[in-house]
């Protein structure tokens, strides 16, 4: 049996997936930043490994690389600094870092 902590350490050391971001039509930030954000499309939507939901304004934040616990991301639409953490359900989530 694999120790979950060891498994996590292995995952953390693995190279991160890279993502090519495209503009999805999110129009609330200047054009050059648009590809880093998208709208949450509701119950049928899901997050990619490079995405997190802003807890303040509910916009989806996107990165060109896979997100991991400890990463810092910014939500430009609501001007929040966020840190990615592992939630109680084991998934990644963003928390505000004032």
């Amino acid at each position: 049996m694999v120790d979950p902590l060891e498994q996590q350490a292995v995952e953390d050391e693995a190279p991160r997936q890279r993502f090519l971001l495209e503009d999805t039509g999110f129009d609330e930030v200047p054009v050059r930043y648009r590809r880093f954000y998208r709208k949450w499309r509701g119950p049928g939507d899901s997050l990619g490994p490079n995405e997190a939901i802003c807890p303040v304004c509910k916009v989806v934040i996107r990165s060109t690389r896979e997100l991991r616990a400890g990463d810092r991301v910014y939500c430009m639409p609501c001007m929040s600094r966020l840190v990615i953490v592992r939630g109680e359900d084991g998934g990644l989530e963003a928390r505000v870092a004032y």
Partner: protein
Amino acid sequence: MSEALPLPEVHGLAHEAFLEEVHSFEFWFQSVSGYLAGRPYGQRPDLVDEPLAPDRRERLVTVLCNYCVGETAALEGASGLVAIAPDRLIQVFLSTQVVDEGRHLEVLLHRLRQLGVTDMEAEIAKRASPALVHFKRRLLELVASRDWEAAIFSQNVILEAMEFTVFQSHARTADPVTRELLQGIIKDERRHIGFGENELGRRLRVSPHIRARIGEVKRELDHFVLDSFEETLRELGVPASERPELGRSYLDAVARLGFA
């Protein structure tokens, strides 16, 4: 034509550089240009207004009159906050909020005019929720007394968070014209709620002694806005089972700030 500028990985910015960017007038201007250009009074010119039944129109006028009270409170509050802001970066950001709030008031008044209201001032005075009018008076007193943290909490956390939720809820069932102008306002509100929570969060982190004062303001004022917007949702016919959602955005924000 595709974007010619190199696309920066925004998440790699230093925090100070990020704040300088998002608080700037330039950032605001380029942001609002994306969703307001070509939409006079927040509406696409080719959008067709649908006729409303008399009782639905009547309820909508009451709701819009109360939105005008809230937006006037935010306009006057933000204007006063410019003078007491702790630094120039925040002054510049608040100047953009003043413009946003002025625009909100203008598009709401324009919508009332489209609905046949001729004497705006009389109509607003007649239909305004006393709780919201009281909140507005207290907010402006806090601004006048130069109580920065209490005023930011009242305006950008209590008022803006509840407006954000109510406008989203209303937009889901509104007629097409009202929906479109509300959607434009919601995009502005994202900046305002984020600014309020983050500014206050930073202040609480370095000056924990202000927590007691903010707690007092919360206990005194938040129910006025909550009550008046619950009234609004009743007017809009939102079922009682969905109304607890109204406070969620606000309650989540105060919980993150440590006021659960």
